[in-house]
């Protein structure tokens, strides 16, 4: 189809720029999973605009299909293959939809000041989602009158994209392919979420092909929703029981490290903070060691449900040395044991954490007020830390050991006050 013809007859060509502007506005207002310059997180947030782009291209596609429906063209003998005709009709729709997606990704990266390639997995899935919804809209338009097909295609796709986000459990939303919760800097997109979204896409494509098939029988009106429903059901089955975000731990092989001991490892996006972090570690590690603090062999930003005890988990959020000390202090603490999430045996380690962190910060030479002031019981924490710091070194060690023991196991009460 000639570009001039497309511009004359296609609503996708007229409304495409508006869709791109809306997508760009939308991409800017959604909170990302992280404010770090992590291309995956930026792409995912921009990709969330597919929840608006998808239904809109479905409506555009329905209009284009409706053109052929009104002409009665699809059922007539024709020289060109049906795929070519559908492709020519859908080309401006796909250009509008994918252009809007590209604009959303571009504005999100530009806002973050990141010059990098977007995550190709997310881009690929969103492209499939947009294409499938456009084709399904086209097929609906081909079989129903445009007066019904256009709003029906839009509302059905909009409901599919928005409804799962409005109900629990959270993983109901993952098969849509709109993953605003992906990903914090230490996490990666879950392959199950990708497979789930692609399964739904496959269901929609089969539904579209069922509707496009000639000769057309009424039973196809029943088979098409069945195919879409099966795709959705299979997609949901793939992500059933997942956590609140469609994520898995990020591959630790991409960490960049500074030698120790203790070694310090950060994600590539935090590379610029590594030198400062290593300097701070070199400064505070001997001080903590002298105070009897058991140090891990490695401070690392990696996240996993089964981190070895030799790794202290940290997040180096800034270049600020006091912030880094605070992060290291958190990394020194033992991880929360699995029993803490069950209610059978009480876990007292949570209340001990704030006291021990404040003490570690004070030992490292940073005023503990910086940390304690963020707590509701900051005054109590400061008073306790001052009392502990006034004790002889051996008693401080015993206080620390008692609190660390309470963090490692359930049912152990921490000796928060030094007199206890």
């Amino acid at each position, binding site marked *: 189809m000639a570009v001039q013809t497309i511009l004359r007859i296609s609503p996708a060509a007229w409304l495409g720029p508006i869709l791109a502007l809306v997508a760009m506005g939308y991409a800017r*207002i959604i909170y990302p999973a992280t404010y770090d310059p992590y291309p995956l997180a930026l792409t995912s947030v921009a990709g969330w605009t597919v929840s608006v782009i998808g239904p809109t291209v479905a409506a555009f596609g329905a209009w284009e299909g409706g053109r052929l429906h009104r002409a009665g063209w699809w059922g007539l003998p024709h020289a060109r293959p049906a795929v070519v005709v559908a492709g020519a009709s859908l080309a401006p729709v796909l250009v509008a939809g994918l252009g809007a997606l590209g604009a959303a990704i571009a504005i999100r990266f530009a806002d973050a000041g990141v010059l990098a390639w977007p995550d190709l997995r997310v881009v690929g899935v969103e492209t499939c989602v947009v294409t499938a919804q456009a084709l399904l809209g086209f097929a609906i338009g081909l079989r129903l009158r445009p*007066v019904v097909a*256009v709003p029906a295609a839009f509302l059905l796709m909009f409901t599919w994209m928005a409804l799962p986000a409005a109900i629990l459990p959270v993983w109901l939303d993952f098969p849509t392919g709109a993953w605003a919760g992906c990903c914090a800097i230490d996490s990666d997109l879950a392959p199950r979420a990708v497979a789930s979204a692609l399964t739904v896409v496959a269901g929609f494509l089969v539904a579209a092909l069922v509707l496009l098939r000639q000769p057309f029988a009424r039973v196809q009106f029943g088979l098409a929703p069945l195919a879409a429903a099966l795709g959705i059901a299979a997609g949901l089955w793939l992500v059933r029981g997942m956590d609140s975000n469609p994520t898995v731990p990020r591959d630790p092989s991409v960490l960049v490290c500074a030698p120790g001991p203790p070694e310090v490892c950060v994600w590539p996006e935090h590379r610029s903070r590594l030198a400062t972090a290593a300097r701070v570690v070199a400064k505070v590690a001997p001080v903590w060691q002298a105070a009897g603090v058991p140090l891990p062999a490695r401070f690392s930003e990696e996240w996993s449900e089964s981190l070895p005890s030799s790794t202290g988990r940290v997040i180096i959020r800034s270049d600020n040395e006091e912030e880094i000390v605070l992060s290291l202090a958190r990394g020194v603490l033992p991880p929360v044991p699995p029993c803490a999430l069950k209610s059978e045996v009480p876990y007292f380690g949570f209340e001990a954490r704030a006291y021990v962190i404040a003490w570690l910060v004070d030992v490292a030479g940073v005023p503990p007020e910086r940390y304690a002031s963020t707590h509701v019981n900051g005054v109590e924490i400061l008073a306790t830390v001052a009392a502990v710091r006034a004790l002889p070194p051996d008693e401080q060690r015993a206080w620390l050991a008692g609190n660390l023991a309470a963090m490692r196991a359930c049912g152990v009460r921490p000796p928060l006050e030094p007199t206890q």
Partner: protein
Amino acid sequence: MTLWLRVRRARTCVAVALALAASLLLTGDLALPIPSLRVGSTLALPFAFLLPLAVATVVAYALGAGDPRAEAVACRPMRLLDTAYALAVAALALGACGLLWAADVSDTAPAAGRNALGYVGLTLLGRRLVGPHAAPILPVGFVLLTAMFGVRPGVERDWWAWPLAGASDPAAWLFAGALLLLGAAALAGTGADR
């Protein structure tokens, strides 16, 4: 008239108006997240405010279901009949929602019924403005527009964003009613579909 009612898909229209009420019972207070560009975050749009779009769509479908060429030379006043028909379907939807409200089983039903009136009015206007095939795009587009731009920080909603108003807002009822009357006047004053 029996044939005319069949051509105008009277059964489908009644079924959709009643299905609106049934859907309101099923969906309750469910709200869909939709981008509100002026607020700068997502807005929880009650599903009940979207459901009446089905009534507007089926009215547009019914009005376009006849044979325009035959209707153009009919002795009966087709456009007046169509106008009365559209008003009757809108009233039926409002009545069904009103029953839910009277039975105290749905808080959002009155607002949904009011929106059905306004959306049908917009659809009738749409027939005049963008043609019978694209008429329902007007209410669908308007709802999106109100969700995206009708709410500002510090302001519950702008005066023109009547579909987002609660049932107790008299101005929203006025808007919806005025749109229905305007749409009815536009339909009554048009010629046959082309």
